[in-house]
């Protein structure tokens, strides 16, 4: 089957019930997206499908259409230049880093919907689990990225928000 991942079409061999997560990790070799729970509880596997954040561990690859645009952490930007990634680095958000791909994908999707989110918006949207407890810095980094002049500029190029535009 064909999958459009990070702007490139991949031909993959997988049974239809295989979760998108494992296709990304084991067939396409994109390991930035993580396995955490397998039941859509933790969000470590978050990717964008047509600009919306999805928990790929619970999305059968058979439900993904060839025309659907999948974006993973690796496809977010070249050189970690997305404003959200820059904000994450500026505030030194990650501790172990395992959940951070998913956290960043969730934050990018939030900011695409609400460029100036309130604390309540962040509370509602950022439901991924971080066991190291980086939540305070995640909140600060979302606010920092939301104030970025780069956000609007980059958002137009970001595959994540093309669906919205």
């Amino acid at each position, binding site marked *: 089957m064909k999958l459009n991942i990070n702007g490139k079409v991949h031909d993959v061999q997988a049974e239809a019930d295989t979760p998108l997560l494992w296709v990304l990790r084991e067939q396409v070799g994109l390991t930035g997206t993580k396995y955490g729970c397998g039941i859509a509880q933790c969000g470590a596997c978050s990717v964008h499908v047509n600009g919306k954040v999805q928990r790929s561990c619970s999305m059968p690859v058979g439900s993904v259409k060839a025309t659907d645009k999948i974006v993973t952490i690796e496809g977010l930007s070249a050189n970690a230049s997305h404003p959200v990634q820059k904000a994450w680095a500026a505030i030194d958000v990650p501790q172990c880093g395992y959940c951070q791909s998913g956290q960043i994908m969730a934050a990018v999707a939030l900011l695409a919907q609400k460029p100036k989110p309130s604390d309540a918006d962040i509370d509602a949207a950022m439901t991924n689990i971080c066991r190291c407890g980086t939540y305070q810095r995640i*909140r*600060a980094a979302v606010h920092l990225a939301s104030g970025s002049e780069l956000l609007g500029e980059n958002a137009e190029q970001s595959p994540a928000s093309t669906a919205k535009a």
Partner: protein
Amino acid sequence: MKMNRRQFIVSTAASGGSLALGLQFPNAAKAQTAAPAGPAGAEVNAWVVVNPDDTCVIRIARSEMGQGTHTGLAQLVVEELECDWNQIKLEFITAGQNLSRKRVWKDMSTGGSRGIRGSQDYLRKGGAAARMMLVQAAANDWKVPVEEITVANGVITHAASGRSTTFGKVAAAAAKLEAPDEKAIKLKDPKAWKVAGKPTKRVDTLPMVDGSKVFAIDVKVPGMLNAAVTACPVFGGKLVSYDDSKAKSMPGVKGVVKVHDNAVAVVADTWWHAKKGLDAVAIKWDEGANGSVTSASIAEHLKKGLTDTSGVYAERAEGDAAAAISGAAKKVEAVYSTPFLHHATMEPMNCTARISADKGEVWVATQNAEGSLAALSEESGLPLPKCEVYRHDLGGGFGRRGGPQDFVRQAVAIAKQFPGTPVKMIWSREEDQAHCYYRPISQCRMVAGLDKDGNLLGMHWRVSGQSINAYMNPAAIKDGNDKRQTQGMWVEPGDAQLGYTFPAFLLEYAQRNTHVPVGPWRGVNTNQNGVYSECFMDEVAKAAGKDPLEFRRQFMSKHPKHLAVLDAVAEKAGWGKPLPAGRFRGIAQFMGYGSYSAAVAEVSVSPKGELKVHRMVLGLNCGHAVNPDQIAAQVQGSVAYGLTATLYGECTIDKGRVKELNFHTYPVMKLAEMPVVETVIVPTYDFWGGVGEPTICVVAPSVLNAIHAATGKPVRSLPLKNVKLA
């Protein structure tokens, strides 16, 4: 109390400022795993390799699991080496390299909050020795006395003759010199630190924001197969038989194998195929005698330990506590309990192994690479020099990835059955939850005697619970008393001393073990004991009619360091000052890992009993503060880890096995529940304490004490999900 210049208030509320255009990553953030130093690089000593282009490679032996230790270790070396912080690379030595060079890099184990404090002496001396050799090489070349030479940022200068050179130019000559006598090495006064002691960005952040960091679970080895595994869910149970007729014909499945005497693994081309195959294997277990154990039967066993007259050991006895209490005008009595807990690292246990006739290799996230090497050697039957452990930074550790190395043993046992083929074993979340070294369960009975004026006459505390050492290290138990289980309540100063001296005090431990495997969990027994000590102190203060802070202060005159941290948080939190309507404060102090911690929590409890933790002020004296920004990060993390335990954390036992097998039944707190955390670091620079674990022990008790203030009722059993607050 005035803050002096050696104290830090790390304010970490949302910055609110806009992100400047053109924000750059700090140069050091580009430092990543360096390729082994090429022939051009000169190894000045074990810790420092200098390349001709002046980059300095710092060798790292300890494990990174999010605590920022690699950055802190590099800061300590660079401080003494006097190289340019922006021109460093880190190189991570393997367990095999350490073994082959007679442990020149010393202890690789990373636990007990020892990463920085356990390495600082030899690392700083290593950096200083390398600097001295580099300077000596320049002095020899110029034929001038070393005393006339200055060095900064990797540049060596002889002002008198106007000459200068760089580390890269003299490194080859320096590497040939004899190392200086250790006694000749003078380390800097921390007051003169320029790199250490400053809030510093981590050197390894970039690969964590672009998905490029390779965790052990991400390892790709050519020709690799994948394994899913399941062990008998009842601890101590055995494998009887399995029917793999269906699984063997499923897509991608290469084999179904027995693992040790208690598990089955399916090996396939992909992990997903392995997992699907495993789900299709019908397995018969012999659950053994433990198959009927429940949480209720365990609780009863521990409860007996609270009053038993045998199998009880006095950890400390000062004065005649029994007499003081029996003659008291007023008695306060309470029984507390805390449950088994799982670490729930975000990265599930995994290990990739390749075993052939003359070589054993594992790729693994480990808190103890040498322990992993030993496990690999024992399990494979290959001698240590034929084994190697390739370390990957951990997707969370919290104590789980240290001691027993069960994940290495299991992966090797599977890979041995596929000689020469690398096999990556990954535990499902369910398997990970079912097989852990859990935080031990315990109860504590506490009695205090007061006179008619509310003065404390004596205390009697007895902890009844499971011993970690009985499970992991029986040799550490002396005369039946596992001292570790009363961690934080000890009389001895320096590591985990109780911050109070009571008029009379009897502290006992009743070792009451279960069949559930137990081990260290971030903060270990300071968690349970912090709750017991600090919540009961509030109960007694209330009975005495005293303010909780003032009540504590009466017993702290011989504990000035405990008191200073308690005072620091009280001041920062505004203890005693008015709060918005409906908000209440709780306070706690405790000690572990050589560091002093205190906290003030601000909470509200709605009429329906809904708890909101608004703000937490945490204080820490860890002696030396190497990277205040990372210390603040660890404190914030300890609040999240400690609050999760307070609110939700509980592994219950039914039919001999753990019931909570994924995050829907073992919840972890989310961002919306995270209070604003303010960190007050008050280093006194006269000792070296830990950072990763110490503050967690004051999180639960400060919150529980605030709840007590809000509702008028003490909470004596965790987690709060089982407690009605209204």
